[in-house]
């Protein structure tokens, strides 16, 4: 075993890759070798650290010093000044927007101070391609504990007790789902990991899989034991190439160590996992459409019931869970339900991983306790709106969620509170918009998305999403009249109730939330034929013609 005095961690997540982390890493390796430090200093690739806005990031241990926005040109200086001479490269340290002194290490950053890392416990800390690094952090201990000291019913009781709820959007109690699948009759049972992640603005599952693939495999194996399933599939978007590569490697490593395969931990329990890739349709993230696609069919939802736990994949009892849900399982088994319930809120314990995007200073990936307010996330962690512009709204839960105005910034974020506010927690996408955006134009984008993604199987969704788009589009063109909003409202009422799957059922939600909180902007478009932000060009052109 090699001993190095220093480990230099370079983020190798996709977001940093887009900013040239590969070149930075290669330059680092070369420079370390050139300076003959390669026996002293080890360069380690890790998964996403969360600070995407500041990427590519480098963390140097044992000091834990964080360097931000590094480029190939910075590498000789980092190696010479820090690794050779032991001094800080001041200019590459992170600078808080308001603080006077640069920050040296990641835990000192406001961005990390408020975070609680359960799901992301290893992201940015370990090399995801080396299974020993996961083991060093206590990896597969929970699986060992479950298989050798707990009965499947005890595992289910623990997850139920922890009140873990599905992180894929609907918030269904995970323990209950497992229990249904366990009790269902079937010749074979399956576990499915849902890594389709089609929600615009959501990229947490990708970064979890890139940064810590074994945490998801371990969760699946525990789920398999609890449910009585000996096989699992991970359904993942085809364009997630890095996640797929790392997952494949992780599966091979786990098989080699006997952590997947036959008679795991000598318990008689067999479990193996296979990857299936999707082609990127939004609806294929919906569980029954996902089964259809996984079976080789056309990705369209099935009529429910029967529910997946009775007749899911290949018609057999199936427990399908989101990647983040699965990554929560091992810590709960290791540390117990009481520990998990001490985090977050009464009805939704634990943490939530959010992806912060839009007009916000620190775009990136964060994990915070459930129940934190939007205000805390946006201002304490996110650093506030970009370029000093005024906050207008935050969309929570991705495109299927609603838009919340300034007045609702203090709503605690969990499934129930956000639903009560007319929005959703959903998959944890947080899109922040400043006041340069026109609300009707934004609503039109949502409507367009659903019209495009509707699979067309059921009429209320196929026709409804199209009409919804046409109506909102009319408003942006100045062609709407006093009948338009009542029509949208009636259409929404119908769509909340009749489509086959939640894609159609939630399609009106974002639009209705903008109507609820920003009605005056709609009125300006309809009554005065005016777009207050000047975004809707068609309305301006039309007014000119009329003049």
């Amino acid at each position, binding site marked *: *075993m*090699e*001993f*190095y*005095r*220093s*480990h230099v*961690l370079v983020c190798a997540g996709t977001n940093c890759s887009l900013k040239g982390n590969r070149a930075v890493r290669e330059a680092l390796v070369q420079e370390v070798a050139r300076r*003959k430090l390669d*026996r*002293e200093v080890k360069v380690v690739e890790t998964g996403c650290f969360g600070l995407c806005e500041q990427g590519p990031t480098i963390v140097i*241990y*044992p*000091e*834990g010093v964080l360097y931000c926005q590094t480029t190939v040109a910075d590498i000789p200086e980092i190696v010479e000044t820090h*690794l*050779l*001479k*032991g*001094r800080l490269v001041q200019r590459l340290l992170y600078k808080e927007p308001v603080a006077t002194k640069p920050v040296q290490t990641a835990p000192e950053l406001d961005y990390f101070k408020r975070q609680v890392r359960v799901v992301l416990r290893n992201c940015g*800390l*370990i090399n995801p391609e080396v299974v*020993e*690094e996961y*083991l*060093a952090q*206590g*990896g*597969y*201990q929970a699986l*060992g*504990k479950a298989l*050798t000291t707990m009965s499947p019913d005890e595992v289910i009781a623990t997850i139920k007790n922890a009140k873990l709820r599905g992180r894929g959007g609907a918030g269904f109690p995970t323990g209950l789902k497992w229990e249904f699948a366990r009790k269902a009759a079937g010749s074979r049972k399956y576990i499915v990991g849902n890594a389709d992640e089609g929600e615009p603005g959501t990229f947490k599952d990708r970064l979890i899989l890139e940064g810590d693939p074994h945490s998801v495999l371990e969760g699946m194996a525990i789920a398999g034991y609890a449910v009585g399933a000996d096989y699992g599939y991970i359904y993942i978007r085809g364009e997630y190439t890095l996640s797929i590569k790392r997952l494949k490697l992780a599966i091979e490593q786990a098989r080699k*160590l*006997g*952590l997947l395969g036959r008679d*795991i*931990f*000598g318990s008689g329990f067999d479990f193996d996992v296979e990857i299936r890739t999707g082609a990127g349709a939004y609806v294929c993230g919906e569980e029954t459409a996902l089964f259809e696609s996984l079976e080789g069919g056309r990705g369209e939802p099935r009529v429910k019931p029967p529910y997946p736990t009775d007749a899911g994949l290949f018609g057999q009892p199936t427990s399908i869970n989101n990647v983040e849900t699965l990554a929560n399982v091992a810590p709960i088994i290791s540390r117990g339900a009481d520990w998990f319930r001490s985090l977050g809120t009464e009805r939704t314990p634990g943490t939530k991983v959010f992806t912060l995007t839009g007009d916000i200073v620190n775009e990136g990936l964060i994990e915070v306790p459930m129940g934190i307010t939007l205000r805390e996330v946006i201002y304490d962690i996110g650093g506030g709106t970009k370029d000093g512009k005024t906050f207008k709204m935050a969309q929570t839960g991705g495109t299927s969620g609603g838009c919340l105005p300034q007045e609702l910034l203090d709503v605690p974020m969990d499934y129930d509170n956000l639903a009560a506010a007319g929005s959703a927690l959903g998959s944890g996408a947080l899109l922040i918009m400043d006041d340069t955006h026109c609300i009707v134009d934004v609503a039109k984008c949502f409507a367009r998305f659903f019209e495009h993604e509707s699979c067309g199987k059921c009429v209320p969704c196929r026709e409804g999403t199209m009409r919804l788009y046409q109506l909102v589009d009319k408003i942006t063109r100045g062609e709407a009249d006093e009948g338009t909003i009542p029509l949208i409202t009636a259409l929404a009422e119908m769509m909340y109730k009749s489509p086959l799957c939640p894609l159609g059922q939630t399609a009106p939600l974002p639009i209705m939330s903008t109507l609820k909180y920003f009605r005056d902007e709609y009125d300006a478009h309809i009554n005065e034929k005016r777009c207050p932000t000047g975004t809707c060009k068609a309305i301006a052109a039309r007014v000119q013609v009329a003049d």
Partner: protein
Amino acid sequence: MKSLKELDQIREKALEMTRVRQGQGLVKIVVGLGTCGIAAGARDVMAAILDELSKRGLTSVTVSQTGCVGLCDQEPLVDVIKAGEPRVTYGRVTPEVARKIIAQHVINHQVLGEWVIATKEA
């Protein structure tokens, strides 16, 4: 994987490999790697320390570096900091002395008096 015990054994080994990222071992060694230190041979001292630790499997020791502290004449400087003990600074350390520091001071708690240039209460 046949048992939890087997997993624990693999884990122990793996933990050693990544301990440097925990930031604090029970013993910390700091080598002066300013230009003056390097000119006086601090690189070889560093190499000797790492080699000795590696040979002895002493991975709970963290090794870091510092720049010039103004005692250029005494370089290479090596500090040994043990939890609850005074910080000991050695001067004009050679690779051989560095190996002795590991064997005697770090392992056997015997400070090498003749090479010490300063001690400071923790």
